[in-house]
C-alpha cells in the first residue's frame, strides 16, 4: 500500500512538472537527447543521498539560519558526491564512460531538487527524508525517460529550425507540465 502511495506521489508531486525544477540541466546537458537516462539515474542517486545527509545535518543548524545555510549544505553534499564519483570512476573505464559526461549536470539538478527538499518539512527524520529524496529523484528520472523518448523527433529535421533541439525539448516539457497540471490538479 505504501509503495503504491509512493508511486502516486511520484506522479502527483513531480517537482519538474510542478515547479520546473532541474529542467534546465536536462535541456542543456544533452546533445541530441543522448545522456538523459544517465542524468536521471545519477540525479536520483545524488538526490537520495543528499536528502539523507541533510536530515542528519539539520539538527546541528540553528532554526534561524536554516533557510540561509541550506543551499550551502546542499552544495557541499552534492559537490562532495560529485568528487567521490569522479575519483571512483578513474578505476574503471566503463564507470568513467558512464559517470563523467553527466555528473556535473546531475550534481546541479540534485542541488536544485535538494534545495526544494530542504525548504520543506520532510528533512527532520532520516527515513522520511530518504523516501522524499528518492521520490523526487525517481520523478526526475521519469521525466528524463519521457524527454528521451521524444528527443529523436525534437532534434530531427521534422522540427522547425527555430525550435529544434533544446528549445523544442523545453516546449515539450512545458506541454507535459500543462498536461500533468490538468490531470493531477
Amino acid at each position, binding site marked *: 500500500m505504501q509503495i503504491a502511495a509512493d508511486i502516486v506521489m511520484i506522479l502527483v508531486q513531480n517537482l519538474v512538472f510542478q*515547479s*520546473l525544477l532541474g529542467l534546465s540541466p536536462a535541456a542543456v546537458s544533452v546533445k541530441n537527447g543522448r545522456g538523459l537516462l544517465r542524468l536521471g539515474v545519477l540525479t536520483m542517486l545524488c538526490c537520495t543521498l543528499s536528502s539523507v545527509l541533510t536530515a542528519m545535518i539539520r539538527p546541528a543548524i540553528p532554526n534561524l539560519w536554516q533557510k540561509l545555510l541550506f543551499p550551502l549544505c546542499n552544495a557541499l553534499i552534492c559537490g562532495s558526491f560529485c568528487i567521490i564519483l*569522479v575519483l571512483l570512476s578513474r578505476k574503471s573505464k566503463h564507470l568513467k564512460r558512464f559517470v563523467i559526461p553527466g555528473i556535473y549536470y546531475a550534481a546541479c539538478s540534485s542541488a536544485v531538487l535538494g534545495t526544494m527538499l530542504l525548504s520543506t518539512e520532510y528533512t527532520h527524520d532520516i527515513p522520511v527524508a530518504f523516501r522524499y529524496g528518492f521520490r523526487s529523484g525517481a520523478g526526475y528520472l521519469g521525466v528524463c525517460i519521457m524527454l528521451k523518448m521524444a528527443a529523436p523527433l525534437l532534434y530531427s529535421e521534422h522540427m522547425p529550425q527555430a525550435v529544434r533541439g533544446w528549445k523544442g525539448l523545453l516546449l515539450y516539457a512545458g506541454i507535459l507540465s500543462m498536461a500533468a497540471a490538468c490531470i493531477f490538479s
Partner: protein
Amino acid sequence: MKASPKITGTQSVLLSGAVIAPIAAFSVSLTQAAAVSFAFFCITFLTVLAGSLIPVKLPLSLRILLYSVIGCLVYIPVAVLTVNLFPSVSGGIYIPLLSSALYLTAGFQRYFRRKHLFRDLLKNLLSVICTAMLTGCIREVLGSGTVAGIPLRFQPPLPILVHPSGGLILLVLILTAVPYLRGKEAAHADCG
C-alpha cells in the same frame, strides 16, 4: 572591438540553464521578475568575479564545488537584501535556487573571455534581466490583467501564463523570437 559571436548570438547565461525555472515559474509579475533579476544579478556577478580568481589548474570537479560554495555564501547577504528591497515578494525556493544553479557557472564561464570578463558578464546578465522583465510584464498583463499590481480594464486573455508551464512556453517563444529580430545570422547561431 567586435564582440565574440557566441556572446552576441546567444544569451549564454540563460542558455546555460541557470535561470530557466526562476524566470518561467516565479516571474509571474513585474515585481517578482525584478526581485529575481536583482538576486540573480548580485549572486552571479559576485560569484563569477570571485570565481575568476580560482586557478584554472585545479580539477574541474573541485572548481565547481568552490564556485557553488562561493555562490551559496554570496546568497546569504543577497537573500537578506532582496527581502528588504522587495518586502511584498516571497522568494520561496526560487531565490535559493539561483545559488544552487551556480553549479553550471563553471560551464558557462567558457563563454566569458578572461580579458573582457567584466564586460561579457555584464552583457550576459543584462540580457537575462531584460528577458526576465519582458516575461514578467507579458505574464502580468495577459495572465493576470494587471500592471505592477494596478488592475487593467479587461479580462486577462491568457490566464494559463500565470502557471509555470505557460511561463516556460512563453520564455521559449521569447528566446526563439529575439534572435530572429536581431537578424538571421544570430538566429542560426542560436539554433546550432
